[in-house]
């Protein structure tokens, strides 16, 4: 199943994961620290008859991806910081038109151009709520180079399965970290493809309500009707402002994610079964937290780690569960408090929650987390 181990940095692993998942179109505008994703896609895509376009900006980049996806191919763009901000409008358009696409957002210090070469986790909330309106979105947050590869593949699968934009969210450290990874043999990665419309063309509804709430897509040119609009629309694709129809359309959009959580949620739990002190962390900070938990366990402290791998929708049930058993929850993150807002929402504000926030462009290390746990 696995090739011999290969040494890759995170952005390279991302590009290889995308190719393995069937991505055949990349449109992007290079920006540190995500540029190597574009670089490697530009090298890989010609070998698989794919298309690489360097666009004039990030707005056009995601627009091109949406167009290509509606044209029938799996698409991806990659960006960071200001570029992710520019993509927000089209992110909402992809959510509303239920167009599968994958957006890589490598987090760097912000706001604005901020610190281009330094890591941050300041986009956790933007990834969920950056575009306007109540919208569905899936965000996965890999913590290692190996996981960038596997989660990029999974992002494509989720995008196709649920007809939604999926964001792969990691930071500058994971992007440029070089680690040894095992890649599946060519063609052996688990790949899911979108459901295409079959059967009668007459009466076909492009946004019909199916059992799992995900409409099938019309393959371009095969005769099934296509209707793409960012306006609130009924199953036939035509705009509506009738309250009951608008409500039904938007609830389906949100529910197709919420009601399919068993296929979307993913968390990693380390020593949480008897954890008295629970650490909740994502990305590279979770790697530090894992080490801190190991250090504390060696000292006899019952510490555990819960790491959301699917960050959005937030793993509410899993966090509530682990939080109920713990007396203290520690939330380290490279921002002024985003993940901790979710934890407070689920576990209740108060003395139970200890947070660590760094916004100086430096990672949070194991010692810092361990010290907070000891003092908890």
């Amino acid at each position, binding site marked *: 199943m696995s090739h011999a181990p290969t*040494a890759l940095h995170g952005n390279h692993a991302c590009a290889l994961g995308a190719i393995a998942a069937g991505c055949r179109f990349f449109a992007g505008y290079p920006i540190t620290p995500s540029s190597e994703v574009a670089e490697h896609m530009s090298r890989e895509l010609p070998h698989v008859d794919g298309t690489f376009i360097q666009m004039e900006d990030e707005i056009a980049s995601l627009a091109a991806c949406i167009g290509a996806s509606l044209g029938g191919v799996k698409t991806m763009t990659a960006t960071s910081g200001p570029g992710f901000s520019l993509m927000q409008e089209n992110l909402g358009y992809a959510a509303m038109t239920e167009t599968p696409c994958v957006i890589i957002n490598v987090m760097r210090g912000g706001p604005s151009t901020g610190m281009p070469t330094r890591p941050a986790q300041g986009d956790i909330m933007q990834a969920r709520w950056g575009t306007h309106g109540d919208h569905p979105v899936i965000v996965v947050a890999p913590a290692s180079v190996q996981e960038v590869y596997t989660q990029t593949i999974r992002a494509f699968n989720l995008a196709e399965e649920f007809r939604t934009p999926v964001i792969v969210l990691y930071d500058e450290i994971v992007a*440029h*970290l*070089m680690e*040894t990874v095992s890649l599946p043999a060519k063609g052996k990665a688990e790949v899911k493809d979108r459901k295409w419309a079959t059967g009668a063309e007459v009466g076909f509804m492009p946004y019909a309500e199916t059992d799992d709430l995900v409409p099938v897509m019309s393959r371009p040119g095969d005769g099934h009707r296509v209707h793409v609009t960012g306006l609130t629309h009924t199953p036939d694709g035509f705009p509506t402002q009738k309250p009951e129809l608008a409500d039904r359309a938007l609830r389906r959009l949100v529910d197709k994610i919420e009601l399919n959580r068993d296929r979307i949620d993913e968390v990693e739990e380390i020593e949480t079964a008897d954890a008295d002190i629970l650490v909740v962390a994502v990305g590279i900070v979770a790697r530090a937290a894992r080490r801190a938990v190991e250090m504390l366990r060696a000292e006899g402290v019952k510490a555990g780690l819960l790491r959301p791998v699917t960050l959005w929708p937030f793993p509410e049930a899993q966090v509530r569960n682990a939080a109920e058993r713990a007396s203290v929850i520690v939330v380290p993150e490279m921002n002024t408090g985003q993940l901790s807002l979710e934890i407070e929402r689920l576990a209740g504000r108060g003395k139970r929650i200890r947070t660590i926030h760094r916004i100086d462009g430096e990672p949070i290390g194991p010692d810092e987390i361990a010290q907070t746990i000891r003092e908890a």
Partner: protein
Amino acid sequence: MIRTEIRLAGSGGQGLILGMHILFRALGLEGKHAAQSQSYEPTSRGGFCYSDVIVTGNAADYPLVTHLDMMAGLSQTGVDRSIGLVKPGGLVIVDERLVPEPPKSGVRLLTLPIMARAVEVGSPRIANIIALGALVGLSGLCTRHSLEEAVRRETPKKFADLNLTAVAEGFALASAGTGLAHGDGAARPPHVVRADA
């Protein structure tokens, strides 16, 4: 495998990331788990820059440095901003000219004419590889053979001879600096001899 943390620190444009990438590859050739990371500023020349390698027995281990076992410094800023991470008694190699004010205590310090040798044998641009050769020669992180093989694989062909000369220079400096480093650098625990601590 005991976790070992190594840094090459200096300023942008010195090839620090390439240097540690070569070490990472050399360790990989020996089947050792390693992770390589770096920090740089948005300027292509100058500014504080470093690259780190950690060697560990556990692939899931924290991939960034926490307490450095050894470091080579090619700029004053690089050393000043990294020295706080070096373990007490850790090995610190500095260039005699680029680091005019080396750390005064707490580490095992070795001041070497890295840049002078680089210029003499061909180019200031190979100071990174000489520093790397000295680090490996002193510490036995990997064999000289693995390091040379990694240099061949990771550097442009037309510079292979120059870079291999740099490895030899680094080992020679290590040897002269301690009288203990061996050409094969094999299976030698991290150690240094001249204790300026």
